[in-house]
């Protein structure tokens, strides 16, 4: 009797496995997670969908589906969204004209007073450092707004300010019981149907988008999907499972190690596509240039380290060669990047040269601390750097921190010798440089640039790049050359953003931060 029971159970299990396999085969034929909606896998919960709650990984994923801004940016070029046009009255004053037929998803008309309300409320939250130059926002009439600034604006700064503040109508904001934390109402074509914190957000197309002239609708405002479901999947490996089981249609969270499974010949290639683009942030190395640092007066040591690291090797090892070994802090996607830099020598990998520089340096054999904010890519890059430097006899201790600690510790001059970090700008290479080298932003914390450099010439060159009157190829070239000459830090590599998606999404749209714009994607009929 027992034997019969065991045999029956075994047969049942086998039958179950066979049936299960057949289910998975038939499931693979489906290319949509939900026939009525596009389902997007995102890595984090926005937690608060209110218009002015700061910035987070979860928020940037849904921001452009929820809200519109005065302008948008595509390929480095700024376009008006709510702003019909804008003019510079003087270096500290801008006039902005709005379209006179804007309304939000709840039907409230949007006028100049709503722009004033949005900016004033956003500034009052103290959540947006980029809005600090705004002195006043005044409604000139119903559709004209004047912005006054407390300083002369620099390259791209006006556009960045306009892109920092989400715009809502005062009526909708005041009607919300929770300051739009769970029930946001923006001027996009979408409204939130439901939000289950930590799980999913459902947007539906209202069918009543205010901008009826399609030629004026840019990527961030497109609304090609009728319904969008953002599913919050915090575990990266679950993004792989979600795409492979067709639970979601598109995701930028699939781990790099699983990407090949979705490429031709891969386990889950059927019905799926991988679209890859270069990501904005650049992984760069910055030397600690504070008084007590071994790098402060030792250009040879800085050059030795730079030449000892094979940037192409890091690209191959960490990104399967899909990234790019950069020749500055960015690439030719920036409109002011000089394409000729791609052909010049930029701390090229040369172990012998590195050893020569090291021999000429004052390096005493002490262990150097390499600090970075830990994630899978950073960990691998740091380990490779440790190995490369080991080749020339420099011992490196890895000092990984989580995001929050890393943000703080990067300004601790006693905490590290070399800093591996990512910096990313969405407009110009000069603003990418600004993130490291504009001492005015860091002087109170570091006494100099972000990595403690005190160098008047660097400051002058930086400001020449940022000033709208002196900005141009000459100032940009001068800064690039001086930074290479001094080697206070340098760009290492840029990684790819791999978007894995169902084949029914024929063209993937991304915003300036390379986040998926489901409304802007193109879908097969």
């Amino acid at each position, binding site marked *: 009797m027992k034997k019969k029971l065991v045999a029956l159970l075994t047969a049942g299990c086998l039958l*179950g*496995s066979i049936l*299960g*396999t057949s*289910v*998975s085969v038939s*499931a693979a034929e489906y290319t949509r997670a939900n026939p009525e909606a596009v389902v997007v896998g995102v890595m*984090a*919960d926005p*937690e*608060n969908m*209110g218009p002015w*709650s*700061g*910035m*987070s990984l979860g928020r940037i994923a849904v921001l452009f589906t929820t809200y519109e801004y005065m302008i948008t940016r595509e390929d480095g070029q700024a376009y008006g969204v709510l702003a019909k046009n804008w003019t510079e009255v003087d270096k500290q004053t801008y006039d902005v004209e709005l379209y006179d037929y804007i309304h939000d998803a709840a039907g409230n008309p949007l006028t100049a007073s709503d722009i004033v309300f949005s900016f004033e409320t956003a500034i009052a939250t*103290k*959540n*947006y*450092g*980029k809005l*600090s130059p705004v002195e006043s926002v005044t409604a000139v009439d119903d559709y004209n707004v004047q912005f006054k600034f407390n300083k002369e604006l620099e390259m791209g700064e006006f556009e960045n300010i306009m892109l920092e503040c989400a715009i809502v109508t005062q009526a909708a904001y005041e009607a919300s019981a*929770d*300051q739009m*934390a769970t029930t946001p109402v923006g001027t996009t074509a979408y409204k939130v149907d439901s939000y*289950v*914190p*930590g*799980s*999913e957000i459902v947007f539906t197309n209202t069918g009543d988008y205010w901008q009826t002239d399609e030629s004026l609708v840019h990527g961030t405002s497109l609304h090609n999907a009728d319904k969008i479901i953002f*599913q*919050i*999947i*915090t*575990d990266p*490996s*679950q993004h792989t*499972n*979600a795409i*492979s*089981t067709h*639970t979601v249609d598109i995701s930028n969270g699939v781990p790099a190690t699983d990407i090949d499974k979705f490429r031709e010949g891969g386990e889950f290639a059927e019905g799926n596509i991988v679209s890859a683009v270069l990501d904005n942030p650049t992984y760069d190395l910055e030397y600690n240039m504070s008084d007590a640092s071994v790098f402060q007066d030792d250009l040879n040591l800085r050059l030795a380290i730079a030449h000892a690291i094979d940037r192409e090797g890091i690209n191959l090892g960490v990104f399967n060669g899909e990234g790019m070994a950069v020749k500055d802090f960015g690439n030719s996607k920036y409109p002011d990047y000089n394409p000729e830099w791609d052909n010049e020598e930029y701390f090229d990998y040369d172990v012998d040269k590195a050893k020569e520089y090291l021999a000429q340096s004052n390096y005493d054999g002490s262990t150097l601390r390499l600090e970075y904010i830990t994630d899978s890519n950073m960990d691998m890059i740091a380990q490779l750097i440790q190995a490369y430097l080991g080749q020339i006899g420099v011992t490196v201790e890895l000092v990984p921190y*989580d*995001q*929050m*600690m890393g*943000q*703080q*510790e990067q300004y601790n001059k006693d905490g590290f010798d070399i800093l591996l970090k990512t910096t990313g700008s969405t407009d110009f290479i000069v603003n990418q440089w600004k*993130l490291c080298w504009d001492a005015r*932003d860091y002087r*109170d*914390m570091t006494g100099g640039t972000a990595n403690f450099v005190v160098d008047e010439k660097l400051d002058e060159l930086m400001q020449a790049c940022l000033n709208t009157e002196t900005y141009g190829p000459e100032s940009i070239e001068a800064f690039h050359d001086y930074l290479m000459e001094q080697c206070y830090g340098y760009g290492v590599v840029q990684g790819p953003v791999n978007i894995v998606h169902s084949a029914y999404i024929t063209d993937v749209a991304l915003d300036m931060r390379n986040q998926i714009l489901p409304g802007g994607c193109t879908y097969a009929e």
Partner: protein
Amino acid sequence: MWKYVVKRLLWMIPVLLGISVVIFTIMYFCPGDPAMAILGNGATPAAIEAKRIEMGLDQPYLVRLLSYLNQVFLHFDLGDSYFQNQSVLSGILYRMPYTLIIAALCMLLQIFIGTPLGITAATHQNGFADRACMIIALAGVSIPGFWLAMMLVLFFSVKLGWLPPYGVGGIQYFILPCIANAFAGIASQARQTRSSMLEVIRSDYIVTARAKGLSERDILYKHALPNALIPIITVVGNGMGMMLGGTVVIESVFSIPGIGMYTTNAINNRDYPIVMGGVLFLGAVFSLIMLLVDIIYAYVDPRIKAQYEGQQKRKRRSKNG
């Protein structure tokens, strides 16, 4: 008995006070600045300082601690999240059902699978069933929950397509998380039940029961099991604490928006009010469970009940003179 319950409930106050002080102190000294996190990398020192003042983070340790304790214990307010523009209490209450459902289902699995496995192992000591049950139990205590979770997803979701790999919805969404979270508990339960039952089965009164001609079923379930229950209940109580703790990992793997994930995200963001509120809440739930376990002891074992009542009678007698 009621006096005992009330006394235990009152004891929870210093326990929760202690938890509050410890967790507040840990978070206070934990590096990372929430103001900097909100403002991002490009924020100026002046903007960061202004934000810190607005958030009250510039106050000294003692001021902040006393203010927090005052807020929690005198005003029953866990504060507001730094990032979510929402009270921590409402956030916890919103997420509580998910965590409690998982913990309760895991508990049921632990009791209704672990106990019979342990009884089977004990009654077939050194036999095939005993070894099979103990191999399962050994696997249960050895396999990490997150690994088992991923294996279950790969098999039942990716390979077979039977169950959803993550998320929330109907009961099908809870099957894999509960199995992954309960497996270790089932194993502990089976091992504890086996050893308790073995001890009881060897007792003289069981031999007497057999000599009287009682059926093996009656001997097991009417005489042996009730006497073996005390250590089993202890494991169940501890297991509930483990289940609540385990949900932190399981909720992250399966993207279940429960208190575990709420707290984990808050730790990463240094959202102190949520972390402190979450831990305090779990501490309170655990204390209540342990109280419940003690009460169940009294109902299962008349000697313990008599002990509780005896203490009160003794006090009454000494008062009367």
